[in-house]
């Protein structure tokens, strides 16, 4: 994939007998513009959490592709339910079908989104949902959620898949393996059949005093030993060695991944979020940001994202809604 815009071609090529329905939490001006663009280009319709007057205003702009949900006083609970696949998009009458994807609007705080994602990932009961989940009944399903971003790197003429820039703060080895699993599902959806995954570190060598390098080597070995996919996983790799062939060559880094990575997996949120912000804020790079692993993918644009990147995030969530994402516990 060379540009993020290619998601549109992938969506166009899909069998779309039924419209996809997205639940949108608290859109502001930028999200509404992105929803409008999505409604005009994609087979989608939206159910929107917002005040009645705002929904009416949006409805005028989107035509009949919009349904009112009304305001919710507990967005964390509602979002959790959506991510768990326990929320249909219909009103009480259930006239609107299942929720295929979710969109974070401008006025759903990142804190609320994070809390909902954490709840779903933890497998805990959702607060306020006691009536729906009986204490004596089965435990709620535990899903592994992670954040995946697509970043159009113009200098490399390709789109990079990056994770995790929002959900898992300092992933241990097991968590990073699960993050890779979710990345591979995204790769499959965007047509990267044999992804090359780089485990990012400050250097390419393994130093006992640098835990990230030791863990990266261990993850790479686990992936090599238990190879069940067509992915190549290697690390530790520094950013330039992972992405630039010439640098990889000069530093003597060999293997399938060095110089040609499609996927960058970081050792903390700051690593991936930092790359994303640097490129989108300073260079206006095209990007898409989603949380995957739930029953419905969540388009999670950041407050700094422009209308185009909110739109691309919605497009990616739509695309992923038709692909099964693994629930790696």
């Amino acid at each position, binding site marked *: 994939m060379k540009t993020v815009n290619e998601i549109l071609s992938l969506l166009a090529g899909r069998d779309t007998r039924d419209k996809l329905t997205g639940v949108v939490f608290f859109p502001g001006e930028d999200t509404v513009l992105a929803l409008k663009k999505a409604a005009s280009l994609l087979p989608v319709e939206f159910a929107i959490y917002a005040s009645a007057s705002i929904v009416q205003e949006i409805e005028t702009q989107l035509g009949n592709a919009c349904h009112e949900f009304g305001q919710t006083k507990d967005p964390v609970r509602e979002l959790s339910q959506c991510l768990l696949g326990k929320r249909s998009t219909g009103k009480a009458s259930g006239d609107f079908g299942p929720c295929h994807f979710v969109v974070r609007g401008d006025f759903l705080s*990142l804190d609320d989104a994070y809390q909902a994602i954490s709840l779903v990932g933890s497998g805990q009961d959702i607060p306020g949902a006691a009536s729906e989940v009986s204490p004596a009944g089965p435990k709620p399903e535990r899903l592994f959620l992670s954040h995946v971003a697509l970043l159009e790197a113009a200098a490399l003429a390709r789109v990079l898949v990056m994770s995790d820039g929002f959900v898992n703060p300092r992933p241990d080895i097991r968590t990073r393996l699960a993050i890779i699993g979710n990345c591979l599902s995204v790769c499959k959806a965007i047509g990267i059949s044999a992804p090359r995954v780089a485990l990012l570190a400050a250097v390419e060598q393994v130093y006992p005093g640098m835990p990230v390098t030791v863990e990266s080597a261990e993850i790479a070995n686990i992936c090599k030993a238990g190879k069940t996919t067509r992915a190549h996983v290697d690390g530790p790799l520094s950013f330039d060695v992972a992405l630039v062939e010439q640098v990889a060559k000069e530093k003597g880094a060999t293997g399938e991944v060095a110089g040609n990575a499609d996927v960058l997996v970081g050792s903390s949120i700051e690593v991936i979020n930092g790359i994303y912000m*640097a490129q989108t804020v300073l260079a206006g790079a095209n990007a898409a940001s989603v949380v995957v692993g739930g029953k419905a993918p969540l388009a999670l644009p950041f407050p700094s994202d422009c209308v185009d990147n909110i739109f691309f995030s919605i497009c990616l969530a739509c695309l992923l809604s038709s692909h099964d994402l693994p629930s790696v516990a």
Partner: protein
Amino acid sequence: MITDMKEPIRRASELIERARALAKGGKRQRIAVAAAQDPDVLDALSEAFEEGVAEPHLFGDRDKILAICRELSLDASRFSISHFSDPGEAAREAVAFADAGEADIIMKGFVSSSVIMKAVLSKEFTLRRSDTLSHVAVLDVPGYHKLLSFTDGGVVVRPSFDQRVDIVRNYLSVAGALGIQLPKIAILGTPVAAALAADVQAENSRLISMFRTGELRGAIVDGPMSLDCALSERIASRYGVRSPVSGDVDAILVNAIEECNVVAKSLIVLLGAIFAGVVVGARLPVSLVSRTDTRQNKKASIALASLVAASVDRAST
């Protein structure tokens, strides 16, 4: 154009220009090069010599150095060479030379960084100023209105609180050399506070409070905040963040080596940012240039080390 020495340096071109101006004013910096048998280092030094910025003294394998000079068509006669075939010994001698006041900058050649750092911190010499040496990457990033520094992406793996204080102090010596009077420093964080570990949160608060109360001076420190908030005041307001550093940061203070290293490299690789790096914390700056640095980046790194050395010199006189 020679820039006003009182104004802060805002672009890499000014950095190089200011180093040249210093040299012209009689402050040509003397560089002790440890294990100088390194083609990239010799190439960069030769250019710095030609431009009048630096005066290199090489410690290393004479035959190898001469062979590299022949291969790269460099004039070896411009270098004074002290022969040491063992890189470790060459490093130690280069550091001893600088310690004796014969050099203003120590530069790494064909020897590992840890060997140099160990020698610089050795109690055998008097170069040790604090317990922490740290790396500062100064970037000229297209789209940002001034130089943006990142620290530490090169030396301290996961700094303790005391090391973080040292890292900030070390950065202040670089900021001073760049003419930045009261640098604005943002501590890099996550988009939501809940994702930060409690101990890191507590340390951040303590560090910020030390600058607010005047226990530490010389910078405005705030955060933690995600990079977009640090880079733009308008974006920070969307997060509900009001900070005296948002949109005008001079430096990003990072919690772990890979966060700093990866984010800075992403700016270099994907945006073509010009990079200058220096290790500070000792009495003299240590310059490291990498094989994969562009010619311009190597030049900027030597210029930065020269300015830091000159600034140290001013402070001690």
